[in-house]
């Protein structure tokens, strides 16, 4: 339709879209330039959720863009001429609202696509978990644009757009601030913007994003009604979809886990060696690390065999469950998507041997973990363990001497105790 085409080119839509995409790209690639891109480029869900963090800026701007668009008739003095035409107000509002929505959604998707280029190069875990996260983000921009248009039509002052931008920003800052003192729960989960990044093994609880989508749809419909009603008195009807959305959403978030996130079972699922040798497993999110881990892991298993009840497999884990005595664990923090294990060769063997094949446990005793690794590897300092001269290095040297001064069976006994203590750890590091 030619009017929609015209509005796509001439309304506030293109400017709002370009601004949204530019800010989104700037947000993503500032982190790349400052070498912090692992906050979003490690996995699809991370990119999608990082975009949702940026909504704290993008959402208020979309609100302001809508209000600016709504002022067009007054700004250009078109209202009188338009009022003498037969086209009803609601019908007239459609192409303008559609153009703004199309541009905002497009901008959001372009930002995602620009990030996707990097994610595709680094992630080991292709999955569709990002789809709802992106969809809710895009919907939130549409809701902001339409709500802004509605409010702008109701209050057609030149001050409305800037005030809406500031008010929207402050409103979205509230949950961000609250999340610093406690995990957000209940209605505090409803704002579209996220306060913290996810990690590779966590995703947004689907019921929480569903609740957000319902609230946002209510806001969008309410905003659209404000744009479309013929008379200002009829504007109260816009409250109905907003209240309806909240009524559906609040019970949903009340039953949601704290923080609104849940483990991503697909990401933590194990991928294991199948060649018949001692079993080595990594998480699906780090599947590409399996090949480079297998060799060092099997070497670590032969070294661990010095201990009684020696483990027979190596597993990369994210924590949160008791460790069986038959497994040696390597925490997933030792892997960086796109880059691989933090060390290779013997240094990686030593990382597996840390704490005699147990995960770090709060409070983390690095000295003891390092001693166990060095003893098992049979070299002090073990590869990758060298410390700068200082108090800790001196203390560790002294502890090593004390350990080596013991008779051999007692040394073995001491290391076995370290492993046993590590196995009883209950928390994540």
């Amino acid at each position, binding site marked *: 339709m030619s*009017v929609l085409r*015209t509005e796509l080119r001439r309304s506030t839509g293109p400017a709002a879209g370009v601004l949204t995409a530019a800010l989104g790209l700037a947000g993503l690639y500032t982190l790349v330039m400052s070498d912090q891109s692992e906050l979003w480029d490690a996995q699809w869900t991370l990119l999608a959720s990082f975009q949702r963090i940026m909504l704290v800026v993008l959402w208020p701007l979309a609100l302001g863009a809508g209000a600016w668009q709504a002022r067009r008739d007054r700004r250009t003095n078109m*209202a009188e001429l338009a009022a003498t035409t037969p086209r009803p107000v609601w019908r007239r509002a459609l192409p303008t609202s559609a153009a703004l929505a199309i541009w905002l959604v497009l901008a959001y998707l372009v930002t995602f696509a620009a990030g996707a280029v990097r994610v595709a190069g680094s992630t080991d875990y292709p999955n569709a978990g990002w789809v709802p996260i992106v969809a809710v983000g895009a919907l939130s921009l549409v809701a902001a644009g339409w709500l802004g248009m509605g409010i702008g039509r109701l209050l057609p002052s030149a001050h409305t757009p800037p005030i809406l931008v500031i008010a929207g920003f402050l409103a979205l800052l509230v949950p961000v601030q609250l999340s610093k003192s406690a995990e957000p729960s209940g209605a505090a989960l409803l704002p579209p913007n996220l306060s913290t990044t996810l990690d590779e093994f966590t995703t947004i609880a689907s019921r929480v994003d569903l609740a957000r989508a319902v609230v946002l749809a209510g806001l969008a419909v309410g905003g659209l009604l404000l744009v479309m009603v013929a008379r200002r008195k009829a504007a109260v009807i816009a409250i109905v979809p907003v209240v309806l959305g909240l009524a559906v959403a609040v019970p949903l978030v009340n039953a949601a886990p704290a923080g609104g996130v849940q483990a991503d079972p697909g990401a933590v699922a194990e991928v294991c060696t199948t060649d018949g040798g001692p079993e080595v497993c990594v998480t699906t999110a780090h599947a590409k690390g399996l090949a480079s881990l297998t060799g060092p892991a099997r070497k670590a298993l032969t070294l661990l065999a010095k201990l009684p009840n020696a483990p027979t497999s190596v597993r990369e884990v994210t924590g949160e469950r008791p460790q069986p005595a038959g497994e040696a664990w390597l925490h997933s923090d030792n892997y960086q998507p796109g880059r691989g294990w933090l060390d290779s060769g013997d240094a990686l063997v030593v990382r597996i041997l840390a704490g005699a094949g147990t995960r770090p446990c709060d409070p983390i005793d690095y000295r003891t973990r390092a001693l166990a690794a060095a003893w098992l590897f049979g070299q002090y300092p073990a590869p990758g363990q060298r410390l700068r001269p200082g108090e800790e290095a001196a203390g560790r040297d002294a502890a090593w001497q004390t350990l080596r001064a013991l008779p051999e069976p007692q040394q073995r006994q001491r290391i076995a105790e370290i492993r046993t203590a590590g196995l009883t750890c209950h928390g994540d590091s």
Partner: protein
Amino acid sequence: MVRKVAATELAPTTYGWHVQADGLQVRAGRRMAVDGLDLRLGLGVHGLLGPNGAGKTTLIRALATVLRPAGGTLTLLGEQLGARPDLRAFRRRLGYLPQDFGFYPRFTVREFVEYMAWLKEMPPRDVPGAVQRTIEQVGLADRADDRMKTLSGGMLRRAGIAQAIVNDPDLLLLDEPTVGLDPTQRLEFRTLLRELGEQSCVLVSTHLVEDVAAACTNVVLVDEGRMVYQGTPAEVAAAGGADDVGDNPIERGYTALLGRHRAVAR
């Protein structure tokens, strides 16, 4: 250029007058700017003359359905405006150029006229042809794809005329359409007016009395919200004498009629 003639255009009208007002009262703010006006307008070009504040713009805005009459009756294209009038059908047949012509500056001329055609609910397949034709009629064909904000004052006025006539209106209301036009453009505009007057009822408000003399079939002279005189330009000219103020017969007729009316009113 050959244009398809729709059946509705050939159908006989079922009303006697395009515009019929009896004792019409229209408020402009708190002032009763049109106060007891009787008016009959049919086919042709009607020049609306009168001093500043005579109620010309208020009358036109009432005919354009911007303002609701405060009293009297107003019948437009056979449709009497009641308490809750259904204006949609009438507005499809209306063309209006407001005195203070508002437009979207980022639209091109073509996009803007297209947009107005859409607002006037023209059948989509007629729009591109009608838009091109009207843009050519007002002499903006070479600027059709330029943004509205790049147009000069006279060009804007012509774009305003183009949007008003794009739907071949039966009632065309032009408030000060010749402001900003240069002499050549005014001559062309008069020709256009005469063409339009053959198909529809055109009401042109202006201060330029010679435009009226040259292009109008009929003159409506108002003062203080009331009708002073309605007649042909020749009749207006005949009303003036050698000692009336004015540079040409119709101007002398204008001042004479106005002066006589004011003398009686006092």
